[in-house]
């Protein structure tokens, strides 16, 4: 009687855990796909020669299983999106020709995803330099890996983490000769060289996202996906380094929302890690400086008037 209860409990536990993560991402060695696709090499039984063959895995098809388990799609299994026939090896060649579901196939027109505004993002993306150059072949997953994507900007409190995660999306192609050439047809320009005009390059790259300058700000979206070519990118210092900084409408859209709701306005001034210039970025100090200046000025005027008046007497 007792062992049946234990068995039932184990079955219940396995059901609960498989709901949180897809059944076997944790145990990659026994996962039908990942036992090969999480390793540098794979082995199979060649039925023609009757021998076991060991081969190198195409590096682009090696999955980062830890990243998958942290990604937004962690509860899906491979064959939820990829054809179930992939479970058989050698994979059928026709499978390659079948289109995969696009992001909007699941996310579009669904009320539970409405706040992310996927449809508007698609409209904006179609104005972008990416779409103009590569058309429909440039899909969401070119930047947002569907396997590992994490909504860092919405969830992280650390601006540097958000910037780092976001810029790596751009750099995955713009700092990779093969991937860049696949889309553009020519070699990738050296980022350090084309941004030579930008003062304190390293600091800028660490503290703001590429899209801060290369994307049009759109109030209705957290990030307008209209990525613009360098001719239309921000190049004026004062667009960001001013009281009315462009960053408030882009990167600090997230930060401000979080800070206002969590800690209040004063601490959001103190914990603001953006750098515009001087005290004017803090409204309290700006007001205080104007008051002190006016007080000193009126004291000087009054004093000199008294002196003139006394002299005349």
């Amino acid at each position, binding site marked *: 009687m007792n062992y049946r209860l234990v068995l039932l409990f184990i079955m219940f536990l396995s059901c609960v855990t498989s709901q949180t993560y897809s059944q076997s991402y944790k145990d990659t060695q026994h996962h039908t796909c990942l036992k090969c696709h999480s390793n540098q090499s794979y082995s199979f039984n060649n039925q023609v020669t009757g021998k076991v063959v060991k081969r190198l895995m195409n590096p682009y098809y090696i999955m980062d299983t830890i990243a998958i388990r942290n990604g937004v799609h962690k509860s899906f299994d491979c064959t939820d999106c990829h054809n179930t026939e992939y479970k058989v090896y050698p994979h059928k060649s026709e499978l390659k020709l079948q289109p995969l579901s696009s992001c909007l196939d699941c996310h579009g027109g669904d009320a539970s995803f409405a706040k992310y505004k996927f449809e508007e993002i698609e409209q904006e993306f179609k104005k972008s330099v990416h779409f103009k150059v590569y058309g429909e072949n440039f899909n969401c997953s070119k930047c947002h890996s569907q396997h590992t994507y994490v909504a860092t900007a919405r969830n992280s409190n650390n601006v540097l983490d958000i910037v780092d995660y976001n810029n790596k999306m751009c750099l995955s192609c713009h700092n990779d000769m093969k991937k860049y050439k696949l889309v553009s047809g020519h070699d990738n320009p050296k980022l350090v060289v084309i941004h030579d005009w930008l003062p304190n390059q390293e600091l800028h790259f660490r503290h703001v996202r590429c899209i801060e300058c290369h994307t049009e700000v759109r109030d209705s979206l957290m990030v307008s996906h209209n990525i613009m070519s360098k001719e239309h990118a921000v190049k004026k210092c004062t667009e960001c*380094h001013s009281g009315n900084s462009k960053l408030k409408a882009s990167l600090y859209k997230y930060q401000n929302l979080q800070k206002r709701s969590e800690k209040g306005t004063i601490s959001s001034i103190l914990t603001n890690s953006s750098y515009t*210039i001087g*005290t004017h970025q803090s409204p309290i100090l700006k007001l205080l400086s104007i008051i*002190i200046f006016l007080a*000193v000025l009126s004291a000087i005027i009054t*004093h*000199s008037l*008294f002196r003139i008046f006394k002299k005349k007497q």
Partner: protein
Amino acid sequence: MGTIDKIYFYPVWLRIWHGFNALGILILIITGISMQSSIDSPVIGFNLVVNLHNIAGIIVLISYFIFFTGNLVTENGKFYLIKRKDFFKNLIKQGKYYAWGMFHGEKTPFPVTEKRKFNPLQKYSYVIVMYLAVPVVIITGIALLFPEIIIDQTWGISGVFLTAILHSVMGFLISIFLFIHVYIASVGKSPKDNYKAILNGWHHL
């Protein structure tokens, strides 16, 4: 050092320092306000203003060395020494003279002598400006010139942000000092007398 009615208080090195310092600080204040207000006109571009601010900053840094070493090696340094005795009493006495006494025919409580170049209010404000505000503004200014050397985060606050705030608060204090300094200079033997002394070095009693 001088005759009965005038003292040679301002030697050539001091006047050179004062001139460079005044020029540098003036450019720094104007360009500083311009940058804070993010003025980017076609005539004077933001980049030009930033460059001017940087150059003027270096001028003030060099002139500070003249001031600092000048005061170390010459007698002039001793005029800045503060005595703890009657610190606040003297301060109030001098303040009262400027606000009340001078309009009621009172004599200055701390007349200028060969041993006393500055009255207490003057001395304290010069010490605060030249030995606190200016060094802080120079150090934070150098840090902002090379922002990669600044600590990233201090108590959860961005290091660059903190440095920038400190830099502009001190800059503001210096500009307030400048206003008062230029005005109070007109309280001399005659309103123009002290301005002439800046050029020729002689202080009239």
